[in-house]
């Protein structure tokens, strides 16, 4: 199919990208009250979801739900409009949202929440729509029932092993780890199926996303004093740049600083310039602040920057770069909006809120 598959599609993504909230407007929102944010958001792509919130229920929680609904819809639209091979990758990215709902269903059952309370925590969409979620919550009495009811979506196979282990140990985290491994493995498998420039761009962007997750996990476990064995269970599929061997070495490093140092050196050897820049920035941020949270923000920033760099490096047309950039921009826009609304609700200063935003540089 070559570049022809992008005919008439790239422009739709460009239009959607232009509809994203501008950086200036996002920082301006941080200085407003929650009441002022609502009319401002009604002038954006979130208009429909925001309008559905009753006036008396306007708070950070209902807004979070509205933002995530909009995100799901945007991802679904992109998936529907994308060429077949790209749609396969976007569908695995959409799985992240679906998996979050699966986790919520399991958590709700584990905590014995009522249907109404559980529905408040869910963001139904796609295959797990309102009706299906309500039906599962009504009909299932226990976690094994929920797992069974998700068999048609393929989650029974994913959760079977975790379920038997959960019944033995009672550790809920096993489900979360199994689902995380599943979704990121699916993403990486779909990425590896892409060929040519699309494959190259996707492997860089998705690879950075997966590796960032593993880096964060290793460093957090190191900071918390969690054993290597425990940490190993929390890791998800990694890219070719930071594969099993490199992650294993980073795991075995004496301390947190040595882990970062090792990872930086490992990517230097591979010559992957995007990774090199990412880890250099992360190391600098950690050395300066000694805070893992700052390092996490730098890694997120790195993912967004890399996505945008791909568009600049290989033209926005006729490749997957623009789609992945849009998906990441949209995700970080939603994350930033959640941060702004919660920060404003908590009475944080605009400067404090801005520090937590992931904005393109």
């Amino acid at each position, binding site marked *: 199919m070559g570049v022809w598959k992008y005919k008439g599609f790239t422009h739709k993504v460009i239009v959607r990208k232009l509809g994203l909230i501008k950086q200036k407007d996002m920082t301006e929102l941080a200085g407003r009250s929650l009441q002022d944010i609502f009319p401002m958001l009604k002038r954006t792509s979130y208009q429909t979801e925001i309008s559905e919130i009753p006036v008396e229920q306007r708070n950070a929680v209902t807004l979070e739900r509205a933002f995530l609904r909009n995100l799901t819809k945007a991802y679904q639209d992109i998936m529907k409009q994308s060429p077949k091979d790209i749609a396969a990758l976007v569908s695995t990215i959409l799985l992240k949202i679906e998996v979050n709902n699966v986790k919520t269903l399991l958590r709700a059952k584990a905590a014995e929440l009522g249907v109404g309370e559980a529905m408040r925590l869910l963001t139904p969409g796609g295959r797990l729509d309102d009706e299906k979620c309500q039906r599962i919550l009504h009909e299932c009495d226990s976690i094994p029932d929920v797992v069974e009811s998700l068999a048609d979506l393929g989650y029974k196979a994913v959760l079977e092993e975790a379920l038997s282990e959960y019944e033995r140990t009672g550790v809920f985290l096993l489900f979360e780890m199994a689902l995380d491994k599943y979704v990121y493995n699916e993403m990486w498998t779909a990425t590896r199926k892409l060929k040519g420039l699309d494959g190259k761009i996707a492997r860089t962007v998705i690879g950075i996303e997966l590796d960032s997750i593993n880096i964060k996990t290793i460093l957090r476990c190191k900071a918390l004093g969690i054993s290597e064995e425990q940490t190993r269970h929390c890791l998800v599929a990694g890219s070719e740049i930071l594969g099993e061997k490199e992650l294993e070495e980073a795991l075995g490093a004496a301390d947190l600083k040595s882990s970062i140092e090792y990872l930086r050196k490992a990517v230097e050897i591979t010559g992957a310039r995007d990774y090199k820049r990412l880890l250099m920035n992360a190391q600098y941020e950690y050395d300066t602040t000694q805070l893992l*949270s700052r390092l996490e923000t730098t890694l997120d920033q790195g993912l967004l920057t890399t996505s945008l760099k791909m568009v600049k490096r290989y033209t926005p047309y006729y490749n997957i770069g623009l789609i992945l950039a849009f998906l990441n921009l949209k995700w970080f826009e939603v994350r930033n909006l959640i941060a702004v609304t919660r920060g404003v609700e908590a009475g944080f200063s605009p400067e404090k809120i801005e520090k937590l935003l992931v904005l393109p540089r």
Partner: protein
Amino acid sequence: MLKRALSVELTGIHPTRLELLRLRRRKKMAEGIVDILKKDLDALTVTLFEYLKQIPALRDEMRNGFAEAYDLFVEAEMLAGPRKIEEISLVSQSVDLNVNIAAEEGILGLSLPTLQLAERAASTFKPRFSLVDTPAKLDESTLKIEGALTQAIKLAEIEASMREILEAISVKKRQINRIQYKILPQLDAAIRYIGLILEETERQDAIRVRVLQRKRKERALKAD
């Protein structure tokens, strides 16, 4: 015991010089004890004020610690979403925080309580919630709370120590008051009583001697 050792009843006193000497010795001893008790009281008061001085700083540290932990928690909510954090809290494994209570010898041999947040065994360090779904801010918040809890426990330890010291101060004060306002006046009264009796006896003896001398003189004059 001190009360029994020092208190005297006038009715059972033998008004003799030996008893007077004994009572004077007891009075001197009681005064010595009062001095020692006053020194103890001073030491206890100084220690009490030293503890008291630590409280505002510790209380501020604790309050700031909890406030910072709360801010970090809100920041975690900002990054992961308030619903997500609420949801994760439903199933995350709780942290068992134990406080070790012991006692150590403090001022004047007083047994003062020591409270310490029990350190968890390394084998218990396991991820409590999904690390993929949560930001590191949540860990930072947890660490801050642990820090603030340590301050709260230190405050509780100081308060418990102050209670012990205040109890000791009150006992010492009671002892001093008892000696100063009961035992010493009793001893003084007894000493005065024996003194008066002895003076009276001396006076009678002197009169008796003078009468005898006068009679002897009269007898000598008659014989002349």
